């Protein structure tokens, strides 16, 4: 990874020093705080973008993320040696996620689709037992008397609500969120990644880890895993999608522990 120039970083340090010197509530304090918000809005926008496409307008998410940014500015302790962006990122993401949780994102899936999703879960179980294998979309559509498109739509949205990977670069800047979190010289290579994976796997919930190992090491199908774990195939699908997204998100994070 190449050394990157970050003019904002020094300015941020300077501003926090000023903020500490200005009495809370004074015009100067407010002014410094405003500038800190302004130079970190691009970080908020970037993080908010990871959550778009879920029926929430991007502007709202930026506003919600900004709440996390403000809280971070007020709680940040520069003397602890952490970069501000490193400190603020989990707070901003946390605020946005809390918003989705509070609003009950799944409730925002149209009722029709929700009902179909539960019918699909039952249908897959029935057909899997009858056929001795996972059904095709055509078979399930015929069984439930709905179109194949509806099945595809419902199964895709059932596995949704997994955050985008954190280590994917933004097309405009080529920078990744992970870049914002680690020092430029701390670029991870795959060897480190491999070492990093072990504690991440260890940190997973027992069932998540079991599902992951069954699927990717023992090469079981989702239906077989569903059988072993005593849950539905739809549940396995969601669990795998979520766990993989979590893993991608956690790997870069290990670096500054």
């Amino acid at each position, binding site marked *: 990874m190449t050394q990157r120039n970050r003019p904002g970083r020094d300015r941020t340090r300077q501003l926090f020093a000023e903020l500490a010197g200005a009495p809370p509530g004074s015009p100067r304090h407010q002014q410094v705080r405003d500038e800190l918000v302004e130079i970190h809005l691009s970080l908020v926008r970037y993080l908010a973008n990871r959550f778009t496409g879920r029926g929430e307008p991007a502007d709202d998410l930026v506003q919600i993320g900004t709440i996390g940014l403000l809280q971070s500015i007020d709680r940040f302790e520069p003397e602890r040696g952490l970069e501000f962006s490193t400190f603020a990122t989990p707070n901003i993401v946390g605020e946005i996620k809390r918003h989705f949780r509070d609003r009950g994102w799944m409730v925002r899936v149209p009722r029709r689709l929700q009902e179909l999703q539960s019918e699909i879960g039952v249908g897959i179980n029935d057909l899997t037992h009858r056929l001795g294998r996972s059904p095709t979309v055509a078979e399930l559509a015929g069984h439930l008397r709905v179109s194949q498109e509806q099945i595809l739509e419902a199964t*895709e949205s059932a596995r949704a609500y997994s955050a985008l990977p954190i280590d994917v670069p933004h097309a405009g800047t080529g920078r990744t969120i992970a870049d914002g979190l680690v020092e430029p010289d701390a670029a991870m290579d795959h060897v480190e990644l491999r070492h990093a994976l072990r504690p991440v796997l260890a940190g997973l919930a027992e069932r998540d880890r079991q599902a992951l190992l069954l699927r990717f090491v023992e090469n079981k199908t989702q239906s077989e895993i569903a059988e072993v774990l005593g849950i539905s195939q739809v549940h396995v699908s969601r669990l795998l999608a979520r766990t993989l997204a979590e893993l991608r998100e956690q790997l870069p994070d290990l670096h500054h522990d």
Partner: protein
Amino acid sequence: MTVENATGTVALTVPAEAGYLALLRTVIASLAAGRDFTLDEIDDLRIAVDEAGALLLPHARPGSQLSANFAGSAGGLRVEVAVTPPAGPLPEPDRSSFAWLVLTALTDSVELAGSGGRLSLVLTKVRGTRDR
């Protein structure tokens, strides 16, 4: 834009950004459904496309595109996902990485290919290799 031509090849080109992977998932799920893949296999393909994207996108440069070519074959599907143009020299695949393990578990073959202007992963999945 997707185009299905006389040979049954579907091509899709999107900006090289993670947000567009959903489009690739939708296309592959639809094509696999049309070819009578099971729901298990369709979900494998969706995850594989996600992982392929996660492997390739770090090699994109600003303005790069992610292109996917989907082709049906007798008993399966072949998809090539490519970043054009990639940033920097072509990387060696780390076959012991977790992402690689995931890809090989989900598909019947995985190949990393690259030449000057593109870096691509070619995945194939045969229908019903386990179940039928």
